[in-house]
């Protein structure tokens, strides 16, 4: 594992990211912008399922409209996230919030793209199962966000 972490930090990419002050924060900004898309689109979808917004629009239509945007955000995060990790791989590897975040993220992604999104896209009406699924989805993503923000906020 140590070899892998050392290799991560020694790549040309990681060297470049840390070679001046602005690269790392810039990648981070794109990572947060991706988060706004992912978390925002899932928040909007779940608010619709809870009947708080866009009540006149069918859930399936809202889900279909938002889905490409969720995916765009996921891609932005999957490009920027590993770049951030590699630059200071050892720091991340040792961080407990980071480990929790990876675990929650894996569950949240599988749950969203495997279960919740399909339920919402096929929904004829909002039933109990869909509302429970929306609550589970919201809790998972809030967990991912809190653990993610915790990596830095708890590091000090």
């Amino acid at each position, binding site marked *: 594992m140590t070899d892998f972490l050392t290799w991560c930090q020694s790549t040309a990419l990681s060297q470049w990211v840390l070679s001046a002050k602005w690269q790392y924060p810039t990648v981070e900004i794109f990572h947060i912008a991706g*988060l706004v898309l992912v978390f925002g689109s899932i928040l909007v979808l779940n608010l619709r399922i809870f009947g708080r917004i*866009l009540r*006149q629009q069918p859930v399936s*239509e809202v889900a279909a409209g938002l889905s490409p945007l969720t995916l765009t955000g996921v891609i932005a995060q999957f490009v920027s996230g590993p770049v951030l990790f590699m630059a200071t791989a050892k720091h991340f590897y040792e961080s407990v919030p980071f480990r929790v975040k990876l675990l929650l993220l894996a569950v949240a992604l599988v749950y969203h793209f495997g279960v919740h999104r399909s339920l919402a896209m096929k929904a004829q009406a909002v039933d109990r199962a869909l509302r429970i699924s929306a609550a589970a989805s919201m809790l998972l993503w809030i967990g991912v966000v809190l653990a993610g923000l915790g990596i830095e*906020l708890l590091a000090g």
Partner: protein
Amino acid sequence: MSLAMRESNYWFPALNLIHLLGLLVAAGTIVFWDLRLLGIGLRRAPVSQVGKSLLPWTWSGFGVMFVSGSLLVVMEAGRLYFNIFFRFKVAFLILAGLNVLVFHFTVYRRVDAWDLAPKAPLQARLAGGLSLLLWFGILAMGRAIGYSLDYAA
């Protein structure tokens, strides 16, 4: 107050966390209204409906950001006033507010005429695009402030 808060180890990260959660709700909703104006995302829903249902959430998130952000500024006391990123951030915020006002009192007045169109008129698309850019700028400057304070410390 600012001294008492600065001396505690918990206030600063806690306020930062609240500030970021406010951002996620504010930006995470306004983005989908901007994108709707650009004809992306919720394009089958009427523009006015997307606006009316998302706006209370945007404002709630913004309120949380504003209160927590103001407290963070108070804690940093004089350090932020001369910070170039902070100045840009405030400028972007003012521009974003002006953008909303102009949009609201011009092209949005005639929204009935284009409410159902997947693609809004050019002026509305410009307002949506500008809002996206300004919010990205606000996020970027906010992050930069954090780093510039770390380096100064």
